[in-house]
Structures are given as C-alpha cells and as structure tokens.
C-alpha cells in the first residue's frame, strides 16, 4: 500500500517536472520568435533559423518528456488493479 502511494507521488512529481520542462522550452522559443519579429524590418515572416530553433526545441523537449513519462510510469492495467 505504502509503495503504491509512493509510486503515485513520484509519478505526479515526474509529470510536473516534465510539463515544466516543455513549458519553459516553449516559452523561450516563442519569446525568441516575438523578439525577432518585433525587430524585423520587412513583413515579419520569421527568419528560418529562429523558427526552426523554436519549433525544434518544443518538439525535442515534448518528445523527450513523453518518452520519459511512458518509460518511467507504468500503465495501470484495468484488470490488474480492479
């Protein structure tokens, strides 16, 4: 019983950290885009390297978070836990 409570707590903590990681990378990426666009002289189609940086950062962080979550947190099987 104690072990299952501790597992649930560590899963909650891991989830929160992973989401925080994704959100921080996302905010940094979008912040760079906004900063770049506000300085652009022409119509602000963002410069490719900033776009790739922002998009790539978000994708990598989210995929890492999701894979880590999937590997570390076991799935509750319907039959077993009932």
């Amino acid at each position, binding site marked *: 019983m104690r072990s299952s409570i501790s597992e649930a707590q560590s899963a909650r903590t891991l989830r929160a950290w992973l989401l925080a990681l994704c959100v921080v990378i996302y905010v940094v990426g979008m912040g760079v885009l906004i900063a770049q666009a*506000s300085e652009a002289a022409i*119509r602000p189609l963002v410069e490719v390297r900033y776009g790739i940086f922002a998009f790539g950062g*978000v994708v990598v962080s989210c995929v890492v978070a999701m894979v880590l979550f999937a590997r570390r947190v076991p799935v*509750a099987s319907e039959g077993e836990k009932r």
Partner: protein
Amino acid sequence: MNRRSFGTLLCTGIATHVGSVARADDGGITSGGPIALTMFGLIVAMTIVVTLWAAKRVSSAHDLYAAGGRITGMQNGLAICGDFMSASTFLGVIGLAFVGNGESVIYVASPILGLAFLLLYIAEPLRNLGRYTIVQVMTLRFEGRAIRAFCAFAVLTVTLFYLIAQMVGAGTLLQVLIGVPYSVAVVVVAALMMLYVLLGGMLATTWVQILKAVLLVGCVALLTVMALARVDFDPASLYRIAGDQLLRVFGDNDAKTALTSPFSALSLGLAMSFGMAGLPHVLIRFFTVPNALEARRSVLVATYIIAAVFFCIVFVLAYASIAFVYGQPQFFDTDGQLAGGSNMAVIHLARVLGGEPLFGVVAAVTFATILAVVAGLTMAGAGALANDLYVQVWRRGEVSETGQVNAFRVGTIVITALAILFGIAFEGQSIAYMVSLAFTVAVSANFPVLILAIYWRGLTRRGALAGGAAGLLSSVALIVAGPPIWVGILGYAKPLFPYAYPALASMPLAFFTCWLVSRLDPQYGASEAGRLFDEIRRQASRGVAVASGAIVH
C-alpha cells in the same frame, strides 16, 4: 462604416455567392482538368467505400459512438493525426505564411506542447475513468441537468467554430478544383459529411481519418521532396528565393501579426496548446481504444507524425509556396489576388511542382482531409445535441437504444444544416484564424472545468457551472469584440477589445471563477463530495474495467 447585425451578415454572406459564380464564369478562378478530376473522384470514392464497409459493422450504439472500442493505439494515433491535421494545418498555416505572417510557427509548435499535456494529464485518466467527453466527466462528479446542458452547449459552440473553418476550406477548394460556386461546394461537402456519419458512425469516421492521415503524410512527403528537388536539395536557396519574393511583393510593408503583440502571441499559443485538451472530437478518440496503454501509445504515435508533418509544412512547403507561386501570373486575378485566396497557396504549389496530376492528388487528399475532420466534428456535435441535450436533459434518459440512434441521426442533420449556413456566411475568412477561435473557446470553456473536475477536490457544481459559463461567454464576446470580427466583418470603426486572440484573458477568468464560486459555495469541502472525488481520482489513476456498453453518454 456600414454597421450590420450578425443576422444580416449571414444573409449577406449567402448573397455574395452570386458574385462568386460570376468570378468562376469569367475565368477568375482556375479549375482542374480531367486528370485532376479523376484523381479527385478516385480518392472520394475510396472514402465512400470505407464508409460503406464500416456501415455493415455498426450494430449498436457503442459501435456508432466508439467504434466498439476495437481500435489499436497505432490506428488511433493515425486517427488523431487525421483529426488534428485539418484544413487549418495544410491550407491555413501555409496560407498564413504565404502572406508573410509569422504566426504560422505558433500554430504548429503549440499543438506539440498540447499533445505532451494530453499524454501527461488527460489521456490516461479519461481512459481509466471510461468517460471521454467533458459532459461525461462532469456528470460523473456532479448531478443535475444544468451541468449537462451547459457542457453540451460548450461542446456545440467549439464544434461549430471548428466546422466553419473546415467548410470554408472545403468550399474554396472545390471552387478552385471544379469551378462550382462556393455555396454549391459547401452543400456538396455537407452532404458527403452527413453520409459518412449517418452510415458508418465512429468506425467509418476513424477509418476515413486513418486513410486520410496516410494519404496526407504521403502527399506532404512528396511535395517536400519535389520542392527541395527544384532547388537541388539546398534549403538555403529556397529560403533566399522566398525572402526575395516577399520583399518584392510586400516591400517594407510591416504586417501587424500576433507576433508583434506579446498579448496576442501568448493568447494564441495558450489556445493552441491547451485548447486541444478541450476539443471534443479529439477527446472522444480515447474512447475507441481498448485500454490505457493503447491510449498512451496513440498519443505518442500522433506526436511523432504530427511533428514531422508540421516541420515539412512550415519549413519547406510554406517557403516553397512563397518562392514558386508568386511570379506565376496564371494563379492571380486582375486585382493581384491569388485564385481562391491565400488558403489555396499549397494547392497552386502542387500545380507548379507536378502539373495537373499532382494538383489533382493534392486537392483530392486535402478534400478527403477536410471531409474526415468534419465527419469527426459532426460526430461530436451530434452526440452532444442528441444524447446530452435531447436524451439526457429533455427526456431524462428515458429513450430506447433505437430512439437514441434516431436522435443522433436527427442531430447530425441539424449540425449539417448549421455547417452549411455558417460555412457560406464566413466565406473568405482565414481558415487558420477560424480554427484558432475554436481552440480559444475550448481552452476557455471546456479545458478549465475538465482539468479541475479531474484534479481539484474543491470544485463544486456551482463553481464548475459559473467558471465554464464565464469562460464560454467571455471568449465568445471577446472574439466578436476583437478587430477581425468587430471591424473586419461587422464594419465598426474601432474594436471593443484590441486583440484578435483573447484566450489569455478568458481562460484565467474561467479558472478564477471556478475557484471563487466554489470557495463561496456552501457545498465547498462537503464530506460526501470529497469521498466521490477520492473515488474518481482512484479510478483515474488506477483504471477500472469498463464493460462494453457500460458507457454513459
């Protein structure tokens, strides 16, 4: 400025199609040749065959609503891709970039964050609870018809906003492809969408989504390779040509996009990230898999594919459209407007890259994309209308299974009629913008009550109702009061609300109202409600066996 009511706007929108017919007649709109039409016919026929195949396998309400729970994680992941890679992605995002709008990166990066959130916090609890719509989760915690009626209304609002965007995309596409008037095109799309849903239900919708996702991924890959081949696989050349074209077309005309306003950029990002967790047609997908493991697998599969497709769309196809479509006079009318509007940029790009056959394939795949998405949306909307409002709220659940299926069919017809009406009225609007409005309403009305119902013990029935209503009303009111609708469509001189994307105001308002009203509610902290919440949390984290047919709609 001419001030018009929303009602007259609808009528005006319908009336403008007389003009669109004229444009089609005088050659202002390009249309496809026989090869393109054959390709188009073939792909639409494939989707109809899938629907007829599925129709034979639908024998119960569980089959109709949840594909019998027999879809695997891989298949469901592809179907989620299909749901998410709608007209807004393929047509709308490239259309935005085509006119130099940098918001396109927010449109594609934010849903990836949304998928991560969906996996970490939503998919498994919903699957474990055996409840897959906001209405079902809310009624699990709170009794009463008011909460069910409100949630169903919120689902309908989101669904309609999303449907409008798809109808606009499909109408314009058919107009460009076969030269029929826009209004006729919208009616044709609506008729096909009704056919899919009425005959095949969720099973047909899921398999059409899978077929379309595979076709779309193949189509994006083919276009990407052909676009890069045109610059000898040197992306730097592509970006240089696109930059030169933008400078030539727009000069130093600085566009005011969301990126130039941090409030709008954050609002758009917030809506596109967390709005996904409030989209009824995506949440309902977790109903179709047999267990939580498959639910998890489906989100991972969807993320990998969506990320790859989005990358190609924004960093290759958008730039290729700018580089190769500008400077091709046959795609522009005498006023310098792109045939079908900027939403059609990628369709014209296909013609530049691969001539008539590729044009036909891309147009047909895009059309199948839209059809599949509108079918999923219609499923969600008709379910809310028929089961939640009619069966549960009006008839208090006293309807036979046959009666439920009939109610669903009537609901489908009503949603189809609304889709035609609004689709015609909103002709010419940016598809990506229209979809962002659906996300804004979803993140303001559905997302706060859903997440709090699963994770906050203190939420009371009154708090959920007040918070959801605050989010729904404020998001819709601020959207209407913002520049695109208040000034651009209704014709007023100045907007009442200065930003196009209001989620940054409406979503926190919904959360705050949920919290405040719950705290002031005499029911706050009641022991019976606490026990119920603990039971729900246990089910959400551990899982329960959900027997086929034991689903509360």
